[in-house]
C-alpha cells in the first residue's frame, strides 16, 4: 500500500459540509458520527437556522451547543414515520441551508437519490446518517465510515470520559476518488481536530 501524507487543510475539508453537497455518515451508534454531523452544521448555523432531523427522539441538543451551534439556531424535527420522511426532508431542503438527517429503515434508494439531487439544485448541504445499513451508491459526495473509536479519561472506575479519537474512512467524489483514513480528536468542545490523514491507494489500482 502506498502511503502519502497530504496537506492537513485538505483533510480538514473532507469533514466540511459545503453548499449543494451530500455527506453520508455510516457507522453504528456510539461510533461518534452524530456529533461529527452536528459539527458540520455549525458554520452554516452562524447565518441562518439549521435543522437536525431526529427519527428516534434521541437527539440531545447540548452536544450541538458544545460543537458551536447557538441553541436558537438549531431546529430539531422529529419524524418517526418513514413514510413522511422523504416529503419532510424535501420541504426542509427547499429553504434550510444545512440539514442533518437520520435515515430510517425503509426509505427507498430512489427517494434518497432524488433528495441528493434536490440538495444540489437548491445548494443546500445535506448530511445523511442511515440508522441501518449503508447509503446507495452515488448519493453522497463524501461517504464517511467510522472505523474505530477510542476514548481517553476513564479507567476501572476512575476518571471520566474526556477525549476521543475517531478513525474515519472518507471516500467518494469529494475525496477525489481516493479512500482516505482520517484520525479526528474531539475533546468535547467545538474544536474538532484532524490529527493525521493517510491517503490509501486510489481505488481500482493494485495496491503494493
Amino acid at each position, binding site marked *: 500500500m502506498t502511503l502519502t501524507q497530504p496537506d492537513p487543510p485538505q483533510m480538514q475539508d473532507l469533514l466540511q459540509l459545503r453548499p449543494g453537497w451530500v455527506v453520508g455518515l455510516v457507522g453504528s451508534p456510539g461510533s461518534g458520527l452524530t456529533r461529527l454531523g452536528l459539527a458540520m452544521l455549525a458554520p452554516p448555523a452562524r447565518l441562518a437556522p439549521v435543522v437536525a432531523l431526529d427519527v428516534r427522539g434521541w437527539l440531545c441538543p447540548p452536544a450541538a451547543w458544545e460543537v458551536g451551534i447557538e441553541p436558537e439556531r438549531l431546529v430539531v*424535527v422529529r419524524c418517526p414515520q418513514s413514510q413522511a420522511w422523504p416529503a419532510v426532508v424535501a420541504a426542509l431542503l427547499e429553504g434550510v441551508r444545512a440539514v442533518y438527517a437520520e435515515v430510517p429503515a425503509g426509505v427507498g434508494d430512489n427517494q434518497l437519490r432524488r433528495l441528493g439531487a434536490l440538495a444540489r439544485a437548491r445548494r443546500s448541504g445535506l448530511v445523511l446518517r442511515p440508522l441501518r445499513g449503508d447509503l446507495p451508491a452515488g448519493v453522497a459526495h463524501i461517504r464517511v465510515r467510522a472505523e474505530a473509536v477510542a476514548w481517553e479519561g476513564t479507567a476501572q472506575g476512575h476518571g471520566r470520559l474526556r477525549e476521543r479519537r475517531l478513525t474515519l474512512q472518507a471516500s467518494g467524489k469529494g475525496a477525489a476518488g481516493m479512500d482516505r483514513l482520517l484520525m479526528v480528536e474531539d475533546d468535547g468542545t467545538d474544536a474538532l481536530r484532524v490529527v493525521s490523514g493517510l491517503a490509501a491507494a486510489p481505488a481500482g489500482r493494485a495496491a503494493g
Partner: protein
Amino acid sequence: MVESAIQRVVACNTHAAAAGVEAGMLRRQAEALCPTGVVLDRLPEVEAIGFEMVVSAVEDVTPRVEVAEPGLVFVPLQGAVRYYGSEAEVVERVHSAVGTHGGRIGVAGGPFAARCAAAAVGDGGVMVVGDDTGFLASLEVGALGDSDLVATLRWLGITTLGELSSLPRAALASRFGQQGIEVHRLAAGEDRDPVPRLLPDDPAVEQRFEDPLETLDQAGFAARRLTHQLVSGLARLGVAAHLVVVEAEAGDGSLHHRVWRSADPFTESALADRVWWQLRAWIEAGGVPGGVARLRLAPDDLSGEGRQLPMLEHLWGTGGSEAWGRWQEVIPARMEAERSIARAQAVLGADSVLVARPQGGRLPGDRVHWRPWGEPVGSAERDPGDPWPGSTPAPTPALAPSDPPMIEVEWEEGMPVRVRLGARWEPVSSWAGPWRLTGRWWKGEGPADRYQIVTSVGAFLCLVREGRTYLVGVYD
C-alpha cells in the same frame, strides 16, 4: 423632586441647590442637606404635559419630531435643511423656539452623539458636532448610562468611549454579548438611524417606457432592473428602506400606486418580488390599459440598517461560514429557512418541530427545555446558570433517549464486564463511576447510579436503578 423607584433626586429648585442638593443624589443625602425641603415624587405624565409646549414649538419649525421621553426630542434634520436651506438656519430657528425654555441643543450625525452634545452644553446652549467619532471618543464611559456594564468597563480600566471603540467588536461581543455590541456601536457613533443629514436628493428611481410594457415578462424584467438600481443607490448612501411606494402610470395616463412595507429592511430580491407581484396584479386584473408607460419606486422609512449589517460581518466571518453566504444574504436565507421549517411543521404537527434551550439538570436529557418552534420563549423551569452539583460532565452524549430503554450489563464484583449491544456482548474496556443520583423521593424514586461504560465500539452513559440498567446516553 425624587424618582421613587430609585430614590434619587432628579430635579431641585434653586433654594435646594444652594443647600448643596444635586441631581443624582440619594434621597437620604438630599434630606440631610436640606431638612426643610419638601420631597415630591416624579410624575412623568405631568412632565409630558409640560413638555408638550416645547414639542409643539419645535414642530412649528419642522414637522418631523420624534419624542423619546419627556425632556428629549430627536429632530431628523435632512428634511428641514432642504426646506430652510442650511443647517445653521434650522438650528437657529429651533434655538429661538426652545431657548426661552432653557432647552439645550446638540447637533450631530447620529442621535446618540447629538444627545451627548446636548448634555454637554449648559442651559439654552447649542453645540454642533462636526466630527462625531472624535467627539464621542473624548467622552467618559458614563455617557452610556449607569449600568453594571459601565461599572465593569471602568473596573477594566476603560474610561473613555474612545478606548472602548478602539477594542475589537468581536471581543466585546464574546465577553458581553449583545449588550457589548450595542455599547461598541454607540461609542463608535453607529447608533440607530445614522441617516446622513443630507441625502443628496430624492432617492426614488423612475423609468419611462417608449413602448409601454404589456407582457408579464417585460414587466418582470423592468421591475428587477429598477429594484437593483434603487437598492444599490440606497446602499451607497448607507441606508435601507422599510417602505417602498410602487407607482405605475398606464398608457392611458391613469396612475396607480401601492405602498409595501416590511419589518426588516428590503433586500434586493425581496423588493424585486414585491414589485413584480404588484405589477402582475395590476396587469392581470386589466388595471393598466395600454400597458405600463412609467414605473417609479420611491423608498421611505429609511434606516441605517443597510450600513450596520456589514458591521456584523466579522462576527461570523470565521470558521468556514464564508462558503454559506455573505451578510447580504442573511435575511433572505433566514426567511427561506423559516418558510421551509413551517412547511415541515405543517406535515408533522407543531409538537414535532422543536427548539431547545439550556436548563439546569443532572442527566443529559434533563438539561434541555423543549418548546415548539415558533412559540415564544417561556422561562426555563430550572436555571442553567445555577450550580448543578452532580450534573454529568461534558462531553455530553449526542444521543439521549427520551424514554431510556433497558440495557443488559453483566457485573462482576460491582464492576461492569460486558454489555449487550444488539445481538452481541461487548467486553467493557474501561468505565467510570458510579456517580450517585439521589432520586426524587417525593415521587417515590429511589437513588440511582450513573456509569460511563466504554467498549471498543463506543461509550455509553448508563443509569442503574433498583438493579436494572437503563441506557440514558450514547456518546455518538
